[in-house]
């Protein structure tokens, strides 16, 4: 009995989906727009999250050694840094390497190279670059540096004063933008939900007489509701397919420029890694929106005398 009813509900839902003409198109169109807005903002938020992570990781610190430093002192200092749990990794650059890098970087700007020659052969200090897990959490690094400064081993670190202020600001702005992205995404999702709910309500309003007739010939409420809810689920399902079919090629095409803008080399690795869960989430969301809209929209017309 239950399965007979279920198969009748499914068949009836499919039939009225096919016969409903432009209302079907309108409802699916709304669904597509809703899902596209939601996925657009979701992806944007992910990009901002990734981008700000990368800015954070770029906020490394270079500490320059005094010219008089010995190799034991360098090892000593490096060990002291490594002992701090906030340090992700350290990279040593010798004075010779620094000069070679400088030459390489400015090989097409002879004036800058000349300046280096004129200032004496070994004017670039050796340095150690510190990367943090989180540039906002730097443990006891400052006191370590101060200690070695008094021992006359190192100079001021680069990550101080102006540079630190800029990096801090970028990280802060990224945080705010990320939050704003989610807020906007939820607001748009909310608006779209209301619009789609109304579209489905209109579709059902146009068929309220049908609902009345079904009641008059002795159909139970859930037997009437079933096909409408199933139809809503189809709207959601097809809407999802169409929105994915539009969204993904769009992102793939603009992928490189987006990557460059956010300074991310592999956002599409991220998307690709999560592709199936993203698609599944969209299907669930779309179908759920369809089902809930029909369910609540039809309730009004199911009241018996």
């Amino acid at each position: 009995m239950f399965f007979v009813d279920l198969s009748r509900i499914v068949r009836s839902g499919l039939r009225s989906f096919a016969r409903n003409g432009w209302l079907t198109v309108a409802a699916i169109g709304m669904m597509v727009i809703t899902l596209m807005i939601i996925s657009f903002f979701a992806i944007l938020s992910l990009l901002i999250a990734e981008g700000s992570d990368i800015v954070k990781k770029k906020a490394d610190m270079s500490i320059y050694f005094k010219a008089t430093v010995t190799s034991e002192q360098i090892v000593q200092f490096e060990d002291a840094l490594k002992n701090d749990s906030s340090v992700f990794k350290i990279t040593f650059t010798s004075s010779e390497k620094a000069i070679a890098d400088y030459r390489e970087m400015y090989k097409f700007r002879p004036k800058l190279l000349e300046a280096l020659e004129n200032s004496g052969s070994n004017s670039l200090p050796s340095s150690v670059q510190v990367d943090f897990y989180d540039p906002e959490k730097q443990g006891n690094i400052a006191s370590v540096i101060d200690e070695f400064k008094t021992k006359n081993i190192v100079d001021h670190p680069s990550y101080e004063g102006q540079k630190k202020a800029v990096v801090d600001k970028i990280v802060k702005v990224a945080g705010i933008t990320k939050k704003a992205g989610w807020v906007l995404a939820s607001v748009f999702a909310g608006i779209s939900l209301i619009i789609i709910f109304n579209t489905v309500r209109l579709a059902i309003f146009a068929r309220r007489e049908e609902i009345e007739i079904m009641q008059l010939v002795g159909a139970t409420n859930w037997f009437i509701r079933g096909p409408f809810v199933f139809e809503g689920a189809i709207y959601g399902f097809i809407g999802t397919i169409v929105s994915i079919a539009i969204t993904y090629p769009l992102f793939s095409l603009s992928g490189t420029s987006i990557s460059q803008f956010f300074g991310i080399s592999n956002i599409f690795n991220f998307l690709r890694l999560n592709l199936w869960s993203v698609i599944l989430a969209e299907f669930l969301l779309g179908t759920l929106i369809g089902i809930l809209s029909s369910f609540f929209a039809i309730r009004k017309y199911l009241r018996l005398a």
Partner: protein
Amino acid sequence: MIYFEKVTREYPNGTTALKDINLHIKPKEFVTIVGTSGAGKSTLLKCIYMDDKPTHGKIFVGGVDLTNLKKSDIPYLRRKIGVVFQDYKLLPQKTIYENAAFALEAAGMPTKEIKNRVPKILQLVGLSSKAESFPNELSGGEQQRVGIARAVIGQPKILIADEPTGNLDPKNAWEIIELLLKINQYGTTVVMTTHNREIVNAIKKRVITINQGRVAKDQEIGRYAI
């Protein structure tokens, strides 16, 4: 089969559609209810299939007291009563076949039995060739015959017809009445409202005249007199 006990229906705006109606309609009867528009005929019929509810009094249908019936029981009551409407009330998105089958599907009848019954009932009303058409492709008379097919396909004990010929020309109207008489001969109780004097006088059946919500006349072989 159908009892009305001091049935009164008042609307919140003060109109009284039915006033102290006492009626007994016996099994296998063919009853015509006549009266001016607004006399309360439709309300009386609606109270039988619970599309309306009396404010006072009791109605029994097939031994069941409708006052005690829960809302969730209404669909099951309606499966035992076939209803034919003046405006046909066919499902516009469903074919003639599907319209006739719908009531049975809703009642949970096995598909095999439905496939067996629908062609037979369409043959009875003479619409076998229109099974795959949609209601808007049919004439008024044809649509009403679909309405009758749908109403009787569940083999109800009672058939209610609210002005079934109201929108039809005399020839089609007569075809509908002949169908109803045939269904009555098979043993179904038929309760019909109409404004058609010619029909009422010709069929020589019981006529109940309603005037301003009250039973004005109740004659075994009645005539149309308002």
